[in-house]
């Protein structure tokens, strides 16, 4: 097994004191940002990214991905103890997690949540270990037309399959692609959309936009809400952990089902949010006693948490193998890769073996260490919520400003970040999704390059996108997904009126 050998090599890369320490710091910071109101996975990763600018890529990605795992774990703490989902994907965890805490079973609920997160991530990491190298070696044969077709597929599936209003997704995506094109045009070397200003020549930096859109806007949104909260504190004893783990095999079907749902929705841009709800609903539907869900059933914690984490983790698969992020956070990690001077894409597996396998090995190790950390430190992190938001908010704002400045040492970027903060705030409130924007901004230049290189190669002939079986299939699939809602409506019109399916 070549993958196993390489994985072992990856572990050996990790076994230095420095990387282990960074891992620990990353996990603790991650749980911290996961627990804090108004901060979460993507925001935390975006704000803390500047810390890693001067590190070597392997240390940097290990620390950042550990922040991500930590944030995933941390989200469950507030959902269960306070009925406040730290993240949209922990909403489903509150359905049964909070009732359990009210019944005095907070420790069981937390153990269940952490354990199932761990299992979900583990399944996804195993999938990455074996599938990512295969996909990337397959993708090595890709030329510009194939790459453009894959990018097109990603964009189209967002528009066609997203649950938001289509025009809102389109606005978000077109805006992202346009802003990505501001500044130097990489093919012709001339300037675009700079309006004669010097500051726009560098273009709109992806990370500046992300810090504003996710960090600043989240603070504004949080301030609008009632910040008073009341919840339970909990301490997890070893006996509780063992008790939950002994019962674990009983729920194998739920765990397996949720893992599969999560992995699938993570690789395709369905996302962790959809995965957690789907995991929960499926568990309810397959249960012998569906009415007991929502009243503190442990399966109602297992199902969404497993799915959310399987999805959050497997979103890294397309990022590693193809350079296409499957989620907002994966997009930010991809932005990080570029800052560290790596070129995302299938060549990563060939040119930066240490980096890739170090990252994959750190996913295993980070999840094990993370599980131990959260199980032992819950009381500590729950008490962070006692810190008034008036003290937390300015610190987060300062961290955002430092992060935005550090990327290019430019004061203009800090102002730009503020602007994106306001835009993000308004967009979130009127329902324009931010994920397509993020994805478009990070992939914009690369997809345009792929398009123009294929055009140059083919002498301006669009038929190049149907020139062989692979690229033709990808392009056609992309168009089908783009018009999926229309196709669905046409199909049902042809079949005639039907009784609506019962959900």
């Amino acid at each position, binding site marked *: 097994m070549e993958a196993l050998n390489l994985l072992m090599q990856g572990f050996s890369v990790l076994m230095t004191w420095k990387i282990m320490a960074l891992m620990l710091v990353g996990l603790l910071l991650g749980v911290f940002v996961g627990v804090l109101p108004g901060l979460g996975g993507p925001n935390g990763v975006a704000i803390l990214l500047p810390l890693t600018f001067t590190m070597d890529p392997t240390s940097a990605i290990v620390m950042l991905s550990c922040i991500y795992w930590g944030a995933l774990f941390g989200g469950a703490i507030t959902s269960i103890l306070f009925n406040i989902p730290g993240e949209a994907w922990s909403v489903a965890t509150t359905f049964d997690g909070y009732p359990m805490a009210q019944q005095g079973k907070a420790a069981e609920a937390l153990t269940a949540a952490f354990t199932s997160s761990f299992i979900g991530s583990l399944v996804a990491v195993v999938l990455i270990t074996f599938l990512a190298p295969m996909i990337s070696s397959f993708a090595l044969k890709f030329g510009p037309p194939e790459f453009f077709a894959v990018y097109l597929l990603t964009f189209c599936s967002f528009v066609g399959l997203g649950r938001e209003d289509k025009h809102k997704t389109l606005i978000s995506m077109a805006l992202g692609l346009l802003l990505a094109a501001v500044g130097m045009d990489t093919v012709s070397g001339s300037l*675009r*959309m700079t309006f004669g200003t010097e500051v726009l020549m560098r273009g709109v930096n992806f990370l500046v936009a992300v810090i504003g859109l996710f960090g600043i806007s989240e603070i504004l949104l949080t301030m609008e809400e009632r910040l008073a909260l009341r919840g339970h504190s909990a301490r997890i004893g070893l006996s509780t952990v063992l008790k939950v783990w002994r019962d674990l095999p009983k729920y194998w079907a739920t765990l397996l089902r949720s893992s599969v749902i999560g992995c699938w929705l993570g690789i395709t841009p369905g996302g962790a949010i959809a995965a957690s709800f789907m995991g929960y609903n499926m568990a309810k539907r397959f249960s012998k006693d569906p009415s007991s869900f929502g009243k503190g059933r442990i399966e109602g914690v297992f199902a969404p948490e497993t799915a959310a984490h399987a999805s959050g983790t497997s979103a890294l698969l397309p990022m590693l193998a193809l350079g296409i992020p499957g989620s907002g956070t994966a997009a930010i990690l991809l932005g990080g890769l570029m800052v560290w001077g790596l070129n995302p894409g299938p060549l990563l597996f060939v040119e930066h073996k240490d980096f890739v396998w170090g990252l994959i090995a750190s996913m295993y190790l980070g999840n094990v260490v993370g599980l131990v950390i959260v199980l032992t430190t819950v009381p500590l992190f729950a008490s962070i919520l006692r810190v008034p938001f*008036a003290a937390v908010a300015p610190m987060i704002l300062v961290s955002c400003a430092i992060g935005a400045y550090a990327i290019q040492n430019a004061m203009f970027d800090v102002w730009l970040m503020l602007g994106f903060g306001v835009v993000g705030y308004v967009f979130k409130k009127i329902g324009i999704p931010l994920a397509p924007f993020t994805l478009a901004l990070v992939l914009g230049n690369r997809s345009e390059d792929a398009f123009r290189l294929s055009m140059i190669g083919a002498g301006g002939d669009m038929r190049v996108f149907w020139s062989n079986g692979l690229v033709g299939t990808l392009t056609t699939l992309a168009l089908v997904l783009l018009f999926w809602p229309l196709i669905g409506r046409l199909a049902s019109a042809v079949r005639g009126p039907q009784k609506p399916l019962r959900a």
Partner: protein
Amino acid sequence: MSPSDSEIVVEDPGEPAEDSPALATNRSVERVAYVALVALALLLGYDNWKSGMGWASDGPQRGYLPFYLSLILGGAALWGLAGTFVARRPAAARSLDRTFITRAQLRRVLQVFLPTLLFVAATQWLGIYVASLLLVALFMRFIGRIAWWKCLVTSLVFAGVMFVVFDVAFDVIMPKGPIEALLGV
């Protein structure tokens, strides 16, 4: 009812009142946003049309893709704008009539946004560390109504930690002002 040991209770002294009058509905904010987006699409579309949106012998010119993206952006925004006048589905109409923000909420948002604006402006004159010290201390004091000594200690420790982490440990150089110059760092 007094909270028992197993409970964590956090009060929010300045919480926005539930019955505060609405300042704007989603409908009006969406209209403003769509008009702004159409204007942006026109501006960018014009700029790209000027820089060449045609098809040269070797494929698209540099303005080609951005020009058509501006068309998509403008078209989608116009579609949205039209939708705020003729809402087709009841669910869409309901979401348009929902309150965007109440007066009390706007007050709270400005309470955090205006200080941030001042902080960024101050960073240019005072450097980021002094500005952040001021932001944290004054925000905690005046928005959070926390005791002075706690505000001062917290802000000093925070600015200090930030300095050590970024400037010393990770070598990320931040903007500095006259006070750092005085201290010789």
